[in-house]
């Protein structure tokens, strides 16, 4: 089965060149360029309205680009309509055809591609087996749960052996538990079939967990594209730093390639930053706490709240002058601190990103 499934997607290079699209004069996509290696899964991550879904719809051919090109395996498909592009797509909304069974849904695309009935049924069955739903082949959409419907939709999209697989927030409508399981399932299937995949999501955990590379989008532009670890640990802009994971914004002063924050000097991600006042973006996990009621100083404060997150806990510490710092600690350590207790902060000397003011996305 896996071997046969692997036939499904000979991955091709996908290149987006300077794609632009606006609606009623408002720019939704502002010059997006992106190259995906054959078989790669790239996640486009960003807040609502950042242009990620527009980008996907341009790739699918469901919208027309006002300028720029979409290339599949070196072939320009920009002018092709959606039904000629050879893409498989899974939508955020449940998209199974309600009047067809799961098997018929998966076979639908194959019948349009003039695959003979015997082969059609064989491949539909194979795809349902790939997503673990063989036993539900004769059920209608309304007889399947949300997670099952999205898996059938995935099987349907892959059955036509598409050049590119497009996943438009396919997990958004599902509850957290099913979402996590299906997320891993999607990655497993994508690795098996090897189809180049573009995955759109606003959920950073989802994007970081399954994509080979993550592209963070903001206001129609790609702020940063890179492996998940790079996106998280070396964000290129303050927007990326703040969107991907929690970030403390602490006032400081840049000098000699470092920034001085709360009396300590931290290295910069980009040491050539100009000297002067700046906002340092410090990850909560770089902050640790020690109980101390005797000393005073800029790094001593009072615990305002402790939020239990499971294995980790988040402690909010007030330092006076309306400055608060978040620290993310193992719950075993955090439990030593109660609201109102005095603590001393330590900030790990990880390279930090700086922003010059509240509105500047990246100004290093």
């Amino acid at each position, binding site marked *: 089965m896996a071997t046969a499934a692997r036939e499904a997607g000979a991955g091709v290079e996908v290149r987006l060149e300077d794609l632009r699209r606006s609606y009623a004069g408002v720019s939704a996509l502002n010059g997006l360029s992106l190259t995906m290696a054959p078989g790669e899964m790239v996640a486009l991550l960003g807040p609502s309205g950042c242009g990620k879904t527009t980008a996907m719809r341009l790739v699918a*051919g*469901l919208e027309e680009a006002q300028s720029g090109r979409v290339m599949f395996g070196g072939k320009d498909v920009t002018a092709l*309509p*959606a*039904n*000629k*592009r*050879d*893409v*498989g*797509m899974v*939508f955020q*909304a*449940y*998209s199974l*055809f*309600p*009047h067809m069974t799961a098997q018929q849904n998966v076979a*639908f*695309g194959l019948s*349009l*591609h003039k695959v003979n009935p015997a082969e059609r049924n064989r491949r539909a069955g194979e795809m349902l087996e790939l997503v*673990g739903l063989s036993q539900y082949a004769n059920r*209608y959409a*309304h*007889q*399947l*749960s*949300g*997670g*099952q419907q999205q*898996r059938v*939709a995935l099987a349907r*999209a892959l059955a*036509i052996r598409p050049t590119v697989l*497009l996943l438009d927030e396919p997990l958004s409508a599902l*509850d957290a*538990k*099913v979402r996590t*399981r*299906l997320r*891993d*399932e999607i*990655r*497993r299937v994508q*690795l098996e079939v090897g189809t180049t995949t573009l995955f759109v999501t606003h959920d950073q*955990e989802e994007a*970081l*967990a*399954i*994509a080979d590379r993550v592209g963070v989008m903001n206001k129609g532009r790609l702020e940063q594209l890179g*492996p*998940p*670890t*790079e996106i*998280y*640990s*070396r964000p290129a802009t303050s927007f990326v730093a703040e969107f991907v*994971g929690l970030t403390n914004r602490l006032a400081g002063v840049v000098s000699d390639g470092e920034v001085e924050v709360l009396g300590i000097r931290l290295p910069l991600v980009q040491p050539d930053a100009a000297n002067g006042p700046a906002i340092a973006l410090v990850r909560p*996990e770089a902050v640790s706490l020690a109980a101390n009621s005797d000393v005073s100083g800029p790094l001593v404060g009072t615990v305002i709240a402790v939020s239990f997150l499971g294995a980790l806990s988040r402690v909010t510490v007030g330092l006076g002058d309306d400055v608060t710092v978040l620290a993310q600690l193992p719950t075993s350590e955090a439990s030593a601190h109660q609201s109102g207790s005095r603590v001393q902060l330590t900030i790990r000397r990880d390279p930090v990103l700086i922003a010059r003011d509240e509105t500047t996305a990246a100004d290093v």
Partner: protein
Amino acid sequence: MNRSRRLRLNIFRVTVFLAMGTFFLVPIAAMMEFSTRGRSDTGPRTMEAWTNIIKTPDLVAGILASLELAAITSIAMLVLLLPTMVWVRLRLPALHRIVEFLCLLPLVIPAIALVVGVFPINRWMRINISDSILLLSFFYLVLVMPYSYRALDAGLAAIDIKTLSEAARSLGAGWFTVMMRVIVPNMSSAILNASLLSVAVVLGEYTFANLLTYENLQVAIVYVGEVSATTSIAVAVASLLFAFALLMVLSFVGRPRERVARPEDPIPAPASRSLPLSDSFIGVPK
């Protein structure tokens, strides 16, 4: 719901059902009674009026013409309205209100005003195209539009037409395939509703046909009524029964499918294999 409340509800339902049934059936029963009266008050019942239906050539022609007009109008309505409404929903949502207004407009214009409006066109068509009664279907198309629009609009609102059509397009379907294999099967109930309403309007139409000097079913009934009241009543009962039969077809063929999602079933674990995800989890240093 407790037992006494359920009982009260059932009694209420049966009462309403019987009251409404009586309201509809008594006039029909009276018409049946009248159409089967003998020549005198004491004479035996007779089906003469009913057999007269097929013996009256004008009546048969009127019935056939109305049935043809009903079929043509229904098909033309679907061909014109359904793709237009789908297109407006998908591509021109800003025009939705305008199209709705235009489609509902005939509802507020008196039939007599419409007839006066179409009279010159009708005369030109009769002289230059054909004198056939089937030309009436052009005007009937306008008449049925408000009713059909409402039925189709409700059907379109009940399905996620945008996602379904985009899913079909991404799988390789052209627009014709999207319409015939995805949209139409999912709104068969609404299409049947719209068709039934069109048929009912056309079968009951009198003003247009009479004033434009065509002889459809209703006009023929009036003519026959001047000669034989019982025969005209028999035809009226027959057309009512025909409409009821269509309603029965609608309720059995177009019954909407239950669309309730089942609770999440556990997703079977994939066959044991390790995912090469070790370098893509949060917090793993590069």
